[in-house]
C-alpha cells in the first residue's frame, strides 16, 4: 500500500461494487442513510451526506469512467459510527487532478452547466480527500447532532 492509498483508507469499512444501475445505486444510498440515521445523524447531516455521495458516485461513472466500458463497477466503502460517517468512492478510470478544476462560483463560470460536484462535496462534508491518482475520494462527516 502506498502512502496516498493509506491516506484515503477506511479501517474496517464495508465495501460494495456498484454497477452503473440507478436502482442499485438508489438502494445502496437509502441503506447508507438509514444506517446514518440509526447511528444518530440528524436531518441536516443526512441531506449533506446524500448530496455528497450522489455527487461522488455520479463523478465516478460520468467522468471517472468516461469513454470506458459501461460495465465497469465503482467500489464504495463506508463505515458509520455515532461520531463520524466515512465513505470512499473509487472508480477504475485514469483519475483526475481535483486542484485543476476551475472555481465554478467565479462570475465567468456561473453560466457553465457543469463543474459543481466537487465543490458541493467539499461544502457539505467535514473532510474530502482524493488519492494521488485522483480515482478515489474519501469523505468524512463529523456528527454534530444536527
Amino acid at each position, binding site marked *: 500500500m502506498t502512502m496516498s492509498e493509506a491516506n484515503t483508507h477506511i479501517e474496517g469499512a464495508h465495501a460494495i461494487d456498484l454497477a452503473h444501475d*440507478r436502482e442499485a*445505486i*438508489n438502494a445502496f444510498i437509502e441503506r447508507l442513510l438509514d444506517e446514518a440515521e440509526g447511528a444518530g445523524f440528524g436531518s*441536516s447531516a443526512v*441531506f449533506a451526506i*446524500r*448530496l455528497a455521495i*450522489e*455527487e461522488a458516485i*455520479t463523478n465516478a461513472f*460520468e467522468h471517472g469512467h468516461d469513454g470506458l466500458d459501461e460495465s465497469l463497477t465503482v467500489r464504495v466503502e463506508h463505515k458509520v459510527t455515532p461520531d463520524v460517517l466515512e465513505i470512499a468512492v473509487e472508480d477504475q478510470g485514469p483519475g483526475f487532478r481535483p486542484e485543476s478544476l476551475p472555481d*465554478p*462560483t467565479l462570475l465567468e463560470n*456561473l*453560466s*457553465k*452547466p*457543469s463543474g*459543481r*460536484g466537487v*465543490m*458541493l462535496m467539499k*461544502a457539505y462534508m467535514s473532510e474530502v480527500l482524493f488519492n494521488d491518482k485522483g480515482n478515489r475520494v474519501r469523505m468524512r462527516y463529523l456528527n454534530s447532532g444536527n
Partner: protein
Amino acid sequence: MSESRLRVSDSDGVTLVEFVDRNILDEANIQAINEEITSEIEKSDTPKLLISFSNVDHLSSAALGALITINNKIKEKSGELHLANIDPQIYEVFMITRLNKLFNIHDTTDDARGAFAS
C-alpha cells in the same frame, strides 16, 4: 415515450413547470426533464417560464447544470426564467454555488408571476 416527470400548465402567457419527483438527482431523469422543458421553450418566440420546486427535497449538481442550460436557452430567445418555492435546504445549495446570483428566485409562484416583465 416515457412517462412525463413534469406537470406543465399555461396561464397568462407564463408556463408553470412543476416536478413529479421529490429527488432530482440522476442523469437519466435530469436528461428527460431537460428535454421536456427544452421542448416547452421551443414552442414560444419569447418563452416565459416559471419553475416551482414545491415538491422537491433534493437536487444534484447535474440538476443545477440542467437549469443553467435551460436558462441559457431562454436568454438566447430573450425570454424569462423565474424559480419559486425552493426549500431552505435546497436554497442553500444555490447560495453555496452562487447560483442565487444567476437565477431570479422567489418565495412563492405568486411572487414570481408578479416579477415577469409585463
